[in-house]
C-alpha cells in the first residue's frame, strides 16, 4: 500500500520544526507502524538523507519507549495499543498520516519525534518507592497476606509503562494519570503505608514543578492509555493528597 506521510522534523530543541511530506510506496499490511518508519528510513538512507529519529526499543509494547501522536491520537487509532504494536493493516491504501511527537512543555523535543520524558523519572524519584534496604532478611514474603482484590488493583495500576500518552493526549498536558498510577499501587499495599502521606505530597509537588497542567477530568488519558490505566486512580490520588494535607 501507499501512504502520504506528514512527519514532524525538528533538528534539535532550539530549532523550529515543521511537517515534511513523504510519499511511501510498498508498505505491507504486516508491518508494524515502527517497521513502516524503518522502511522509510532505509529509503532515506539509500538516498543519502538523514533518517527520521524516533524513540523505540522493545517493540513488544512494554518498555514504554515508543511514543508518536498519529493522526491526532497518542499511539494511533487502535485502542489499548502502543505504536510498536500498531500494524499497518489498520490504515487504508492512499491514506494521509500525520506523525507528530508527544507535545508538552514538560516533554521538550530532542529531535524529530523524540522527546525528553525525564520529568517522569523525577516525579518517581520524588517518592515512588518503599524505603526498604536490601538486607536479605526482610520478613518472609508470605507473612502479610494481601487481599486478592487489592493485589489485583495494585497490579493494574502498576502496569503503567511510563510512555507519556496520558500527557500527550491531555488538553492540559497533565501527568495525573501517570503519577496517580504509582501512588495508587503503593497506597493499596500494606508495605506502602508508612510513607503514604509524604509520598503523595512529594510526588504531586514534583509533578507541578515539572510544568504539567492540572487535571480537568476529561478522561482522554484513560481512553488513549495503551495499558488502560483507569482514571479511578486519579480520584484515589486526589483523596490521598487531600487526606495527607489534612493530616499534616
Amino acid at each position, binding site marked *: 500500500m501507499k501512504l502520504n506521510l506528514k512527519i514532524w522534523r525538528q533538528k534539535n530543541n532550539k530549532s523550529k520544526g515543521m511537517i515534511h511530506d513523504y510519499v511511501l510506496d510498498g508498505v505491507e499490511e504486516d508491518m508494524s507502524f515502527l517497521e513502516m518508519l524503518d522502511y522509510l528510513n532505509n529509503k532515506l538512507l539509500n538516498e543519502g538523507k538523514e533518517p527520521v529519529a524516533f524513540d523505540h526499543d522493545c517493540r*513488544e509494547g512494554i518498555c514504554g519507549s515508543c511514543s508518536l501522536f498519529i493522526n491526532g491520537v497518542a499511539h494511533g487509532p487502535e485502542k489499548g495499543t502502543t505504536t510498536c*504494536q500498531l500494524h499497518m493493516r489498520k490504515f487504508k491504501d492512499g491514506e494521509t498520516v500525520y506523525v507528530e511527537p508527544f507535545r508538552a512543555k514538560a516533554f521538550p523535543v530532542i529531535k524529530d519525534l*523524540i522527546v525528553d520524558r525525564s520529568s517522569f523519572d523525577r516525579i518517581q*524519584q520524588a517518592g515512588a*518507592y518503599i524505603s526498604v*534496604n536490601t538486607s536479605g532478611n526482610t520478613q518472609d514474603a508470605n507473612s502479610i497476606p494481601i487481599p*486478592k482484590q487489592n493485589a489485583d488493583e495494585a497490579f493494574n495500576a502498576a502496569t503503567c509503562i511510563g510512555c507519556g500518552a496520558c500527557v500527550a493526549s491531555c488538553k492540559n498536558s497533565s501527568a495525573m494519570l501517570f503519577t496517580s498510577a504509582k501512588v495508587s499501587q503503593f497506597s493499596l499495599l500494606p508495605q506502602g503505608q508508612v510513607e503514604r502521606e509524604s509520598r503523595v505530597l512529594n510526588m504531586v509537588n514534583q509533578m507541578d514543578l515539572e510544568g504539567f497542567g492540572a487535571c480537568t477530568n476529561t478522561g482522554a488519558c484513560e481512553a488513549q492509555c495503551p495499558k488502560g490505566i483507569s482514571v479511578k486512580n486519579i480520584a484515589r490520588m486526589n483523596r490521598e493528597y487531600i487526606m495527607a494535607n489534612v493530616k499534616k
Partner: protein
Amino acid sequence: MDKDLKMFSIGDLAEFLNVSQKTIRRHINSGKIESKKVGGVHRIPIHSVRKFLNPNESILENDFDRDINMDNKTSQSFPFQNKVPDGPMEQKWSNHKRNINLVSPANKRLIDVIVVGTGLAGASASATLAELGYNVKSFCFQDSSRRAHSIAAQGGINAAKNYQGDGDSVYRLFYDTVKGGDYRSREANVHRLAEVSTNIIDQCVAQGVPFARDYGGLLDNRSFGGVLVSRTFYAKGQTGQQLLLGAYSAMNRQVNRGKIKMYTRHEMLELVIVDGKARGIIARNLVSGKLERHAAHAVVIASGGYGNVFFLSTNAMGSNVTAAWKIHKKGAYFANPCFTQIHPTCIPVSGENQSKLTLMSESLRNDGRIWVPKNKTDVKKIIEKKLKPTDIKEEDRDYYLERRYPAFGNLVPRDVASRAAKERCDAGYGVNKTGEAVYLDFYSAIIRYGKEQAHTKGLDENNKELIEKLGKEIIKQKYGNLFEMYEKITDENPYETPMMIYPAVHYTMGGVWVDYNLMTTIPGCYAIGEANFSDHGANRLGASALMQGLADGYFVLPYTIGDYLSSDIRTGKISTDLPEFEVAEKEAFDKLNYFIQNKGSKPVDYFHKKLGRIMWNKCGMSRNKDELLEAISEIKKLKEDFYKNVFVPGELFDFNEELAKAGRVADFLELGELFAKDALEREESCGGHFREEHQTKEGEALRDDENYNFVSAWQFKENSEPMLHKEILKFESVKLKSRSYK
C-alpha cells in the same frame, strides 16, 4: 601532562620488568621505588626505573608472588583463579561472606562505582551499592532506566520457597538448574543462586512488587518447563516489568538521596584501565553526541546479552554487546559465546521488513499442544490456504513432542523443543509460507477446561458449543493478554485457530567470564546478569534469568565487590585527567569518526541483517563444522565490506542514531566471528549448542564430558587469533548424567 606521560604506571612497569603489580606496589610502599601520586594513582618517574635496567641492581628477582597463578581447581592452562571457596557446597557462600574483606561505612563514602546498564542486575546492583554507601554512577542508553529490556520478561521468577509444599528445596532448584544447563555451569555459583533465590522474593514483596496472589492473600506459583515443581512467582504476563519497576523504585530512592547519579541516553564506548585496574569509562552522551570521561574505583558491566547478533531476536532493538565487548578487548575473557538460547514459542517471521521477534510466554506450553500435519499433502494445502488447520483430523496430526518425549511432552526444556520444531520444519512440515512455523493448539485445553467447568456448574457436559464457550473463558483468564498480543501482531484469532509459532533467539548463556566474586579477568571490572556467563551453563531454564539478574545485583555483587574495594579506601578520587582517559577517549573518538568520514553507501542495517542471516543459518539451532567454517569466512568478508561501504549520515557531536548503531554492529561483527569459532571448537552437543556431528541415533544431543567438560574462556589478541583458555568444571554435588526428558 607531558611530564606525566614520561612516568610509568604500575601496570607498565610490571609488564616491563616482567613481575607482578603487587610486587611493584610492595616496593613502592617500602620506599624502594619512588612514586608520585597523580589523581590518586601511582606514577613512577623514569629515573627511579633506570636502575632496574642493570640486572645486577635488580631487587625484584626473588619474586614468586604472582597475581596470576596456577590453581589446582582449574586446568593447568587456565590462568585465573575462579575463587570458589572451599568447604561443602551448601556452606561455600556463607563461609565466603564471613571471610571476605569489608569496607567500613565511612570509607564507602570515598569510593565511586560505575554501573553500566539498568536492567534487573544493573538496577538492583546500583540501588544496593548506593544503600551500602558507595557513590554510584549509573548508565543506560535508553531515555529512562525503567526501559531496560528486563521489562519484557513475561513468565516469572523462580525461587525455592516451597510455598506449594510440593517438595521444592534449595537443593532441588540447584539441581534442576545444573541439569537444565546440561552440566556446563559452575556448580558453586548455581548453588549460591538457589540459596539467595528466596531472599529475592522477600525483598521484592517488601518493595511493593504486586505478585499474583490467591484468594487467601498469599503468593501464587506456576510451573515452568524442565522442572517437576511449581516454584515460579509471577505477576500476570508482566513479571519482568514489575520486578524491574521494583528495582527502579529502589534506584529512585537512592537518586533522591543523592547516592546514585543517573546518566540516561549515555552509551559506554571504552573501559579505562589505569595500573591494570578498571578505573573508569568513556561514554557518549547520545543527545549531544559528546564523549564524556567518568572515573570510579570499580566498573560493573550489566549490559545484558548479545542475542541481537542474530539481528532478529526477542531482544530489544537497542540491546547490544558493546560494553561487554569493549571490556573483552581490554582483557576480560569472554566465555562460551556459542551458548545461545533459542526460545521455542515465538511468533514466526512474517516478512522481509520485520525488525524483531515477539515471544509468547513459555507458560503457554502448559496448555498448548504442539503439532504439524502428518502428511505433506496437507501441509501444501494449508500453505495454499485450501485447508484450515482445524480441518485436519486428529489422526492426521503429528504431536511430535508428545511422540518423542512422552514423560515431559510439551513441557520439555527450551532447547529440546526448539530443535524438535526445526527438525519437523526442515523435513518439510512447516505450516506457513516460509515453511518455518508449527502449530500451538489450545483446542484440547479448551475442551478439558470447558468440561471441568460444566461439571462443577452442573451443566450439560455433552453440549459442544457450551463446553467450548466455557473453556475459552478459562483460557482467556489465564492467557488473555498473550492471546490479545498474538492477535494484534498476526491478525488471527488464536481462540478459533491454532497459534503459529517458531523458535527465535532469546537469551545468551555465554558472556563475560567471571570468578566467584563476579569479577572479570580485569581487576576492578565486574560483570553481572545476562552479561556474564556463570549460572546457566549451556541452557537456561524458564524464569531463571530474572532470578539470576536480581541475585547478582541485590545479594552477590554488593558484598563481593567489597573484597576488592577494601584495598582502595586510601586511593582517593580518580582523576579523569589521567593520560589513560585521554587515550581511551581518543580511541572512542577515532572509531566513531571513522564512520562519519567513511564514504559508503549502504545503511548500517544492511550489514546487521546480513550478519543475522549468516548467524541464523550457520550458527543457529544446529551447527556443523563446514557451515561454521563458512560462517567465519563470511563474517570476515562482511566485516571488510562493512568498514568499506557503511554509510553514516549526520555528525559525531550530535544526536545520531545511525552512528550509535554502526558502533554496535561493528562489535557484533567481531563477536559473531568469535561465536562461530567457539561453536567450532566445542566438538560436542550440549544444551543450546547442537553439533550435527554429535548426536545419538534418535537425534538427541550427545555430550562429551571427557573432553569438553570446561568453560571456554576466550582471550582477545590484537591482530591475531583469539586464545582459548579452559576452566575445567568440577561436579561435587551433582553427578554428571546425560540429560533425559523422555
